[in-house]
């Protein structure tokens, strides 16, 4: 009798735990999960786009495979965020020194109408020499942003001018093309540089 009661309690307990687990799954991973705030980019190997770099070379996601990659979006008519990001990146690259030599660093414009190949060449010339500038037709830029789960939007500022809202994070990919992590806009150097090292180290682990 007593034993049966214990078994009964035990069964009820197992049932309760199972229910809790189910509720937990439902809320965290299941159909009840909240929509992800910022989705992760797909791997570079799953992207498909054709752009032109600032030296007029045809480039695409395959250009980046084989070396770790740091990529970000912007536009050269951007007075605050983009020069700040480019300066931050230049500083991180200086900190990394030789370690950064084997890395792709790509600035992709979200304003191809004004950012021609020549414009990109002039602009990136003012920053760290490792930084490449990529541009291309609007529909190709849209495909890049889609793969990165990035967004951009043209915003009129009056009298025919416009500015661009855009994802300002810096994306890090391993040499395999796998997405590693991202650096938020204007993130302090002490957080950014270790993140870049993670992308670099992942490459070494993959190679050995």
């Amino acid at each position, binding site marked *: 009798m007593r034993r049966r009661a214990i078994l009964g309690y035990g069964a009820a307990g197992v049932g309760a735990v199972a229910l809790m687990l189910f509720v937990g799954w439902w809320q965290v991973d299941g159909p009840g999960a909240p929509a992800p705030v910022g989705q992760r980019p797909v791997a570079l190997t799953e992207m498909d786009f054709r752009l032109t770099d600032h030296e007029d070379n045809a480039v695409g996601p395959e250009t980046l495979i084989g070396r770790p990659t740091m990529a970000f979006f912007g536009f050269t*008519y951007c007075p605050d965020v983009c*020069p700040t990001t480019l300066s931050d990146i230049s500083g991180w690259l200086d900190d990394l020194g030789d370690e950064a030599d084997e890395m792709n660093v790509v600035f992709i414009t979200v304003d191809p109408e004004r950012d021609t190949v020549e414009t990109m060449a002039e602009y990136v010339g003012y920053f760290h020499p490792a930084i490449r500038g990529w541009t291309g037709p609007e529909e190709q830029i849209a495909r890049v942003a889609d793969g990165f789960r990035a967004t951009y939007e043209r915003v009129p*500022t009056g009298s025919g*001018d416009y500015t661009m809202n855009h994802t300002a994070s810096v994306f890090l990919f391993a040499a395999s093309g796998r997405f590693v992590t991202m650096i938020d806009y204007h993130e302090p150097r002490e957080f950014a540089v270790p993140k870049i090292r993670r992308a670099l180290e992942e490459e070494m682990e993959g190679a050995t």
Partner: protein
Amino acid sequence: MKKHTLTGTLAALLTLGGLSVPALAGPEDVVVVNAWSRASIGMNRPGAAYMTIRNTGDEPVTLIGLATPLAMMPEIHETKTNAEGVSSMSPAGEIAIAPGESVALEPGGLHAMLMRLQEPMTEGETFPLTLLFDDGGEVTVEVPILGIAARGPED
């Protein structure tokens, strides 16, 4: 309190001496430090300038606008980055600075957006930027133009 008395005494002395005391109570207490800007590429792109504006007085001051011969449309803008990492920029409107407080115009936040440049911003040069306050007061600062990749006033 001590400072207030000193200012009062100074005002009295100046008035006695036949000199007019500036009518503007606010802006004479405004101190601008660490002003800097980045060089531009040509004149088509907007420039940006940064600084710290300190209200050393006893009364609040309100910054309502900018003027400079360098740009036809200088405005204070604010960059905001949302939870998804998307940055956008919009006019900041009026900026009230409480007594003893400072407002920092710095990369990624508030900045003096210099639209419709009248001449290129050349590294090594400076330009005058006038801050306009709601009581009619003005404060003009000479803003040094640093390199295009400058990160702060010391670069």
